[in-house]
C-alpha cells in the first residue's frame, strides 16, 4: 500500500510542477509580497503635503512657517491666497491639512499675548488627521516654549517614550506575519479546492474512487504537494524577511514550523471542504476567493486590531484560523517567546485543524457514495 501511495503522491507533484505559470504564482507571490510590502508599507506619517495661508506675513509667521516646513513631517506644497482655494486644494485629494495665520498675527501676539492659528485637517482619513494635527500642535507648543523665558516652561512633565520590538515603526514587523497568514491560507484553500474540482470535472476522480485506493490515501496524495509547497514558501518568506527586511526569527524555528504546518493543514482542509460542494472550477475558485479573501484579511488582526471591533465581529474573528496563527507568529517570531506563551493558541489551532480535517474527510467520503 505504501509504495502505491508514494507513486500517487509523485503523480500529484508532477501535475503541479508541470504547470509553470501556477508555480510562478505559488512561489512568486510570497516573494513579491514580502519584498514589496516589506519595503513599501509603512505606518509612519511624514512628508505630509500641506498648504499654508499667511494673511499676516510678518516675522513671526514667517518663522513659524519655516519651522513647520523644515520638519520631516510636513511638506508645504503651496501658499494660498484665499479661502476658496482651500476647498479646491482639498478636493484634489493631495493636501492633508491647511494652516492659516490670521491678519496682524505678530502684532496681536505682542499686544494681547494671545493669538490663534487655525488648522484644518482633511478628516477623510481620521487617523491621519489626528496625527498631523498633533504634530503641528507640537511644533507650535515648542515655539510657545521658546517665547517664554528662553526655553524652559515651569513644571514640565516629559514623557520619555520607548517603542518596543519595532523602534522605527517599520511596517514590516506587522505585515510580514500578516502576509504569511494570509498567503498561506488563501493559496492552500484555493489551490486545493480548484485542483480537486478539476479532477471531478474531468471525470478522473471517479476513476480514482472505484480503484482499491482508500479514500484517505487519495486525500493525502492530493494535499501533499500543496503542503510541501507551502512549507517551502514559509522558509522562503522567513529567509527573505531576514535578509531583506532585517526581520529575524527571534524564537524557536522549530516551534514556528510546527505551528505553521498545523495552520497549513487547517487551510488545506478548508480547501477540501470547499471542493465538495463545488461543481465547477469556477465556483470553487469564486467560493475560496470571494468568500475567504476579505474576511481573512480583515479578521486576522494584522490590518485592524480585533479588540476594536464590535462583539459580533470579534466572535467571527475567533473562528478564523489565521487569527490564531497570526498571534503565534508574532509572539514566536517577533517577540522571541516560547511554547508557554502560545500554548493556548496552538491548542485552539490544533483543535480547528483536527475538526476541519475530520469533517471534510467524512463529507468527502459520503458525498461520493
Amino acid at each position: 500500500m505504501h509504495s502505491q501511495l508514494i507513486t500517487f503522491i509523485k503523480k500529484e507533484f508532477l501535475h503541479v510542477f508541470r504547470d509553470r505559470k501556477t508555480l510562478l504564482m505559488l512561489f512568486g507571490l510570497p516573494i513579491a509580497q514580502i519584498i514589496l510590502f516589506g519595503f513599501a508599507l509603512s505606518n509612519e506619517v511624514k512628508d505630509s503635503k500641506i498648504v499654508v495661508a499667511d494673511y499676516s506675513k510678518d516675522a513671526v509667521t514667517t518663522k513659524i512657517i519655516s519651522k513647520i516646513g523644515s520638519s520631516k513631517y510636513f511638506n508645504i506644497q503651496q501658499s494660498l491666497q484665499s479661502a476658496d482655494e482651500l476647498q479646491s486644494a482639498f478636493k484634489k485629494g493631495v493636501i492633508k491639512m491647511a494652516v492659516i495665520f490670521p491678519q496682524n498675527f505678530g502684532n496681536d501676539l505682542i499686544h494681547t499675548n494671545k493669538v490663534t492659528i487655525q488648522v484644518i485637517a482633511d478628516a477623510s482619513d481620521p487617523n491621519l488627521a489626528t496625527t498631523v494635527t498633533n504634530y503641528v500642535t507640537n511644533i507650535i507648543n515648542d515655539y510657545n516654549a521658546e517665547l517664554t523665558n528662553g526655553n524652559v516652561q515651569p513644571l514640565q512633565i516629559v514623557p520619555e517614550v520607548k517603542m518596543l520590538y519595532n523602534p522605527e515603526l517599520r511596517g514590516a514587523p506587522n505585515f510580514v506575519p500578516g502576509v504569511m497568514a494570509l498567503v498561506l491560507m488563501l493559496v492552500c484553500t484555493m489551490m486545493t479546492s480548484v485542483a480537486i474540482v478539476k479532477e471531478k470535472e474531468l471525470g478522473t476522480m471517479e476513476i480514482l474512487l472505484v480503484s482499491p485506493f482508500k479514500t484517505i490515501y487519495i486525500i493525502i496524495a492530493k494535499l501533499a504537494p500543496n503542503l510541501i509547497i507551502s512549507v517551502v514558501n514559509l522558509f522562503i518568506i522567513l529567509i527573505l524577511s531576514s535578509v531583506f527586511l532585517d526581520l529575524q526569527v527571534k524564537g524557536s524555528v522549530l516551534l514556528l514550523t510546527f505551528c505553521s504546518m498545523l495552520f497549513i493543514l487547517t487551510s488545506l482542509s478548508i480547501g477540501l471542504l470547499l471542493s465538495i460542494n463545488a461543481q465547477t472550477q469556477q465556483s470553487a475558485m469564486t467560493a475560496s476567493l470571494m468568500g475567504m479573501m476579505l474576511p481573512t484579511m480583515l479578521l486576522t488582526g494584522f490590518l485592524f486590531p480585533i479588540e476594536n471591533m464590535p462583539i459580533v465581529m470579534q466572535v467571527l474573528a475567533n473562528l478564523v484560523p489565521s487569527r490564531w496563527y497570526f498571534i503565534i507568529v508574532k509572539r514566536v517570531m517577533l517577540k522571541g517567546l516560547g511554547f508557554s506563551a502560545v500554548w493556548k493558541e496552538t491548542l485552539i489551532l490544533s483543535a480547528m485543524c483536527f475538526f476541519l480535517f475530520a469533517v471534510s474527510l467524512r463529507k468527502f467520503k459520503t458525498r461520493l457514495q
Partner: protein
Amino acid sequence: MRTLFFLLEKEFRQLMRRKSLLGILIIAPSIQLILMPLAADFSVKNVSIVVVDNDHSTFSQKLINKITAGGNFKLAGYVSSYKEALKMVEQDKADLALQIPLNFEKNLVRENSEKMFVAINAIEGTKANLGGSYLSSIVRDFDNDIRVEWTHNATVDAPQISVASSNWYNPFMNYNLYMVPAILVTLVTALSAMQSAFNIVQEKENGTIEQINVTPIKKHIFIIGKLVPFLVLGIVIFTLGLLIGRIFYHIVPVGNIFVLYTSLVIYLFAMLGLGLLISTYSATQMQAMSLSFFFINIFNMMSGVFSSVDSMPAWAQAIVQTFPPSHFIKIMRTVVLKGSGFSDITGHLIAMAIIGLVLNVWAVLNYRKTA
C-alpha cells in the same frame, strides 16, 4: 453589429442561468460590504495601559485618572515593577506600559521638570503612533492645567499661541466613510479582473472556443461579447454597493453620481483589459486563477485601501501609480467624501484610461496570435 447582438444575447442568457454563480457574485460582495467595515476600523480606542506608580501620590493618581478617563485608554492594571509591566506588554495583555517614578511630584516642583517612562508595543505601527499621540496630548493638557493652577501668574503674561483645529469632510471622524468606498472597490476589482479571465479560459479549456472560431464571429467581437456581461455585472455590484453604503452606513456621496459612474466605467475598462490579458496567458482555469490572484492580492495591499500610499517610498509610489485600483480608490474617496468633480480627478481618470488602453491593446494583440 448583428453578430455582437446575438453573441451578447447568448452570453447574458447563459449568465442568467447560472444562478449559483450569480448568487455568489452578488451576495458575497454584498455581505462583505455590510459586515467588513464593522471590522475595518482604524480608529484607535481602548489602548490598554498598565501602570507602575512608584510615587503613590494624589498627584500621580490624578494624572493616571486623567489618562484613563478620556476613553482612548483602558486601564489593564497596576503592577509594582517596570519588569512586570513589560511582561504584560509581552503577553499582549497591555499595549502600553507607563511608569511614574518615585518622588514624581516632589521632583517636578523642585527641578521644574520630571520624566515619566512610557513603553509602547510598536509592532502595530498605527496603534503605537496614535497611542503615543493621545498620551502626549493628554499629558500636555494635564501639564497646562497644573501650571495654571499652581503658578497663577506665570502663564498669564507669557505669550501663547493656541491652535484651533477643525476636521473637514468627516467631522465625526467616522472610519466607515473612509473604508466603505475603498472596500467596494476591492470587491468590484476581484469580480472584473478575475471572473472575466476565468470565463474566457473556461471556453478555452472546454474546447468550445473552437466552435466560435469556425463561425464568422470576428475575434474582437468575441472579446467584446465576453467582456460586456462583466462590465454590466460590475456596474450592478457597484450600484448595489452604493445602496448598501447608504442604507447601512448612511454614506451619501457628496459629489456627483455621474462622475462616479464615469470613473467606474473607465476603471472597469482597465480591469477587464487586465482580465483579458491574463486569459491570453493562461491555458487552464487554474493558471488564470493563479495569475489574477497574484495581481489582486498586490492591488489590495498596495493601492491605499489599508495603508496610505503617501507613506511609501518614492519608488513604491511610482509603481502604485500604474495600478488602476489606486486611482479609482482615490477618486471614490474624494468624490464621495468631498464632492470632488471632474476637474479635480482628471489626472486619475487619464491615468486609468491610459493604463486601460495599454492593457486592452496588448491583450487583443496577444489574443489574435494565440487563440
